[in-house]
């Protein structure tokens, strides 16, 4: 390797290259508003910064009442799903230089808005719980680890990546129309166990997903796959679950 010159220009000199970012945010305060309203803000920041940093700048320097969830700030905790310029995204993994300086930000759809960008996540987590998202194993492995081949481990690798951010479920037109539908995220969670060679609960989960609010509601619109910030092939996982039900095969 030769590193005579800097190959990258990471956030080089912050002060030198600030840009003006314009935010249009859909706001709602249940204690004062009767319906949502739009509010606009301008902030100055580095193009290498995140959309989340823009929201923080507003909150910390202009209007402390602006309300949104966040924690890790690098796309692993799933707190900050929101609709950014029309698409479901995590605010913390989208940089201004990629997404632009004009931002329209709204809460995710299909879950009730509580305040500004904060929605009621409880129905979403209840759907997650409904598919029995935990290992069900009837064997007694004793004091040893269970063995699992690398191929068997790879079989469900993709769906272990889910961070329960709800980007997929709240981008699904079927879910918007019918909140009884268990939704893509819960199916992903079920898939993670159905295809785990150590698990004995596949049939119970498939029975749950075969019900009328289950997996056959899905009309394969692919919104979920596009929305997933973890790059999980959500539609494919749903198809695999459908096939497992139809052909009785895991």
């Amino acid at each position, binding site marked *: *390797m*030769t*590193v*005579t010159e*800097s*190959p*990258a220009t*990471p*956030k080089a*000199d*912050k002060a030198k290259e600030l840009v003006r970012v314009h935010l249009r945010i859909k706001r709602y*305060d*249940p*204690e*004062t508003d009767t319906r949502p309203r739009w509010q606009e803000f301008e902030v100055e920041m580095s193009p*290498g910064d995140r959309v989340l940093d823009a929201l923080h700048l507003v*909150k*910390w*320097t202009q*209007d*402390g*009442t602006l*309300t*949104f969830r*966040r*924690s*890790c700030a*690098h*796309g*692993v*905790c*799933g707190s900050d799903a929101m609709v950014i310029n029309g698409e479901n995204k995590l605010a913390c*993994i989208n940089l201004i*230089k990629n997404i632009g300086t004009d931002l329209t930000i709204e809460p995710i759809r299909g879950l009730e808005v*509580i*305040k*500004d960008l904060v929605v009621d996540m409880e129905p979403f*987590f209840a759907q997650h719980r409904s598919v*029995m*998202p*935990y*290992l069900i*194993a009837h064997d007694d*492995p004793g*004091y040893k*680890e*269970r*063995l*699992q*081949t*690398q191929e*068997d*481990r790879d079989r*469900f690798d993709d769906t272990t*990546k889910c*961070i*329960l951010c709800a980007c997929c479920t709240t981008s699904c037109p079927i879910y918007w129309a019918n909140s009884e539908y268990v939704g893509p995220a819960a199916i992903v969670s079920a898939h993670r*166990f159905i295809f*785990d060679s150590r*698990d004995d609960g596949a049939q119970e989960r498939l029975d749950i997903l075969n019900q009328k609010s289950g997996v056959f509601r899905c009309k394969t619109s692919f919104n979920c796959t596009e929305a997933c910030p973890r790059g999980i092939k959500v539609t494919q996982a749903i198809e695999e679950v459908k096939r497992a039900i139809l052909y009785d095969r895991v």
Partner: protein
Amino acid sequence: MNVHYHSYDAVVVGAGGAGLRAAIELAGEARTAVLTKLYPTRSHTGAAQGGMCAALANVEEDYWEWHAFDTVKGGDYLGDQDAIDIMCREAIDAVIDLEHFGLPFSRTPQGRIDQRRFGGHTRNHGEAPVRRSCYAADRTGHMILHTLYQRCLAKEVNFFNEFQVFDVLFEGEGANRRAAGVVAYEMATGDLHVFVSKGVLFATGGYGKMFKISSNAHTLTGDGPGVLFKAGIPMEDLEFYQFHPTGIYGFGILLSEAARGEGGILRNSDGERFMERVAPTVKDLAPRDMVSRAIHAEIKAGRGAGPKSDYVYLDLTHLPPEQIDSKLPDITDFVRTYLGIEPKKDPIPIQPTAHYAMGGIPTNVEGEVIVDDQNTVLPGLYAAGECACVSVHGANRLGTNSLLDIVVFGRRGGKAMAEYVKNVGHPDVPKGAEAKVRERIEQLKAGTGSEKVGEIRTTLQESMTLDASVVRTNESLTDARKTVEELKAQYANIKIDDKGEVFNYDLTEAMELGHLLDLAHGLVVGAQARTESRGAHWRDDYPTRDDQNWMKHTLAHLEQDGSIRLSYKQVVAGNYQPMERKY
């Protein structure tokens, strides 16, 4: 402001790895409530990448005693060896337990749990790096957090999500206190909840948000330690704060040591592999404190890269692309996302990032909180995880030993508390126990002040990163102390914008800042007093370890007037005598 009362046997505060592991032990044994300010799966345990060490010997010869030796040495002989022995011995069961709970570990070709190298972990007392870290690609923490949460769902654990604990309750006074519950703030309504309970276990995680460049989540603000500090419980070894060598330049986002475990190399602006000079045997896999200081030295000597010569490179370009994709998928994605470069082709700009608190709430090996240098236990009060100090990490934690710590001591704490609550009566808590918290909230909302939370926090973070991080001197610590003390005075006069009840993060951030300030205060005062260099605490003006005077734990006490008083506590000795720390 409505107030609700609840009665439980056990309350767990925090639902990261430590809190969830404790809850699994308590479920079915005691009436338990788990209170968490974040949905459990949002906890920062989910951000851990590299792995969790245990001497399973699945891929090469290994013994828990070797693991214990490495932990003692890595901690620069400040760790308590009784606790370290327990952790390293129970590590093996802890990993097997997680596998049984369903954790999808990466596997060997024989189908066993795979293991890889990690900084400071060696075979036979330092001979060469050993494969000891059990992992699931580079998302081990995510898998641990989700697996434990899943287990809790199966066990129908009772969660109170988005309940932020603001205060702890006791029965009795002074030396006769016993834990009696907590006061929590419900985000969705702004209501207060008084949880009266026989046992309380704090598992609130770290406090890395007192630094500007940090791998920690915005929510890691030291709430548990902060609340207890204010309640007269001393904090142990706050000055030992770990800076991880490889944070993404400018962001501080972590690139796991697994990158070097897989063969990644650190290089300065000349392309030189400088760790060869510093640690000839283990090179890039030296412990974190040493690597961070080596980077600092390279930069200081003018061998840093970039327009400001203030970073070095982590080079993965020589690794097979398939290995990068299968073993380091997430962290290489972070590099693409935040720096816009391809780590298979370009070396990655990195700088040390504030990462892990070795110090915290003093506990014994059962997770019981101790309140003085005599190891006196405060009945009913427990702590586990990063917020606690057992102390297994001593002056410097080895990579992969925290995920281990949280499951081993989360389990022990949960078990011990389940036992304790069976044998004691329900505490007496007078009506109006929430008065102090209510007054504080009303005072903040009445808003007579003028200082902004965001500004105070930024100044604190900048000052701590500049003056109290990888390399410290009396002068820099004097500056930091002055800044923190001024900020504490300003904090008394803050104002918040949001006066509402529902999801008032403006209010919770103000409360969190109070904890950060108190803990930063304890950190700088402890660091200034400690006139030696040990582990992560490096004093340029006292560059050697001084076992004669300083082989002891610091206990910082927050006094009524807001000042810090220090006392000291003995280190528990064991099999390994202090020796020079060379790698």
